[in-house]
């Protein structure tokens, strides 16, 4: 598998796009859209086919993930700070996990990528051009699948799993509504709109994930299979 990964913007000091082989596959979507289920399936499927895989996600860096968690508990960070904190977390994983894995020819499965971060920041009023510059450090993935689920369906899935709606996934920091149920619906539709805006620039593949797990799995395997056959 030989290919190269250009960057969205300036890229990173001391990293050449041509050194990056492997494949970078991104699965985006809200909590309850089935991301983790699909990624778990893809990992087994790819490993069975003989591909080495690595998984990354948000807020998993060794550098700042603990501090980020702590700051979120108190909800004390303002929007620019939060945006930059998340970008630091992303950059740390990019340089320590994603890039080395791509150099070694692995398939990197990203459980969310810069688009979720950008969409969250946009919903909080950050400037799109500012975000685009900030995330110019990110390599362009080989494929991005956005698992799109209607907010009403997301509510049902989140409640059946946790019996509660997450503070941040409901956008409660935004003061859209004091009622977490209403806030969740409003926030998730705002996030979908932000993704639609980003889709125009970044052109990712929107997958209808209102359907059963199996039909989504089938579609993802088919598309990724085709991608891996390209030489």
């Amino acid at each position: 598998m030989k290919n190269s990964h250009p960057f969205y913007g300036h890229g990173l000091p001391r990293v050449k796009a041509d050194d990056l082989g492997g494949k970078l596959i991104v699965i985006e979507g809200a909590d309850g859209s089935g991301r983790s289920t699909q990624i778990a399936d893809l990992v087994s499927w790819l490993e069975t086919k003989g591909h080495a895989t690595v998984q990354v996600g948000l807020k998993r860096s060794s550098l700042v993930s603990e501090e980020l968690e702590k700051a979120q508990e108190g909800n004390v960070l303002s929007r620019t700070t939060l945006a930059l904190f998340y970008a630091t977390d992303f950059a740390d994983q990019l340089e320590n996990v994603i890039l080395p894995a791509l150099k070694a020819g692995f398939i990197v499965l990203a459980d969310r990528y810069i688009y979720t971060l950008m969409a969250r920041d946009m919903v909080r009023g950050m400037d799109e051009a500012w975000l685009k510059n900030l995330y110019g450090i990110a390599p362009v993935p080989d494929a991005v699948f956005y698992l799109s689920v209607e907010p009403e369906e997301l509510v049902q899935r989140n409640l059946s799993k946790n019996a509660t709606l997450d503070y941040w996934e409901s956008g409660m920091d935004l003061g859209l509504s004091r009622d977490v149920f209403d806030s969740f619906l409003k926030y998730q539709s705002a996030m979908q709109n932000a993704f639609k805006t980003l889709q125009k620039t970044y052109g990712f593949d929107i997958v209808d994930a209102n359907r059963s797990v199996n039909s989504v799995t089938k579609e993802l395997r088919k598309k990724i299979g085709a991608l891996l056959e390209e030489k």
Partner: protein
Amino acid sequence: MKTFAESNFPGRLIAVEGLDGSGKSTQIYLLKRWLEAEGIKVYFSEWNSSELVKSATSKGKKRELLTPTTFSLIHATDFADRYERHLVPLLRAGYIVLCDRYVFTAFARDVTRGCPPDWVRGNYNFACLPDLTMFFKADLDVSLNRILEGRPKLKFFEAGMDLRLSTDPYESFKIFQGRILDQYLAMSKEFSFIIVDANQPVEKQQVILRKLVSDRIDLKKFKRKSPLPLPPSLPVMHDDKEEILEDKVA
């Protein structure tokens, strides 16, 4: 980017920039004491001092985990936290805010580390520019001697060891500081730095500073209605205390 005055903030921001050992921290401290004695609403803010981000920053530095990109972003996060939580409300409330280092420190340092200038500037463009920026220009040897004589142990990032300029920390520090100085001087015109000759005696520099400030800022507008008692002076002067590294923790 506009200044705070151009953005209609009632407050004003004064920044000092310069290499470690240029004496800028001493000067801004004396400026603060003077403004306090004059009954002015004044607040002092240091680079790299947000409590929230501190633990991540120091962990990254101690474990030498930072790349040019994460070094840049973590400092931007720290700056944003101070900016949004302290500087903006104070400037809206009509304070004179004194900053020991501002965005230019990042512009000079991160670009020296290899980050693209447009990227770094773009990341900081949520911030307004200072109303007055004074750059303390000392001979490179003078600044280097002040740091190297006093405190022989240099920290990894402080010495620019991540750039692999030299295996000797002192040598690396000298080359690194020289490059940062070049970056500062290159942006001096673009950001209207006022260059202060930092080879002069402390007292003489302070006279120049106070005159500059009173000429450019109508200080009586920033007086407190009821004056506060003068705060005690600092027991020990720390020049660039964050910059000077203690022994590295393994």
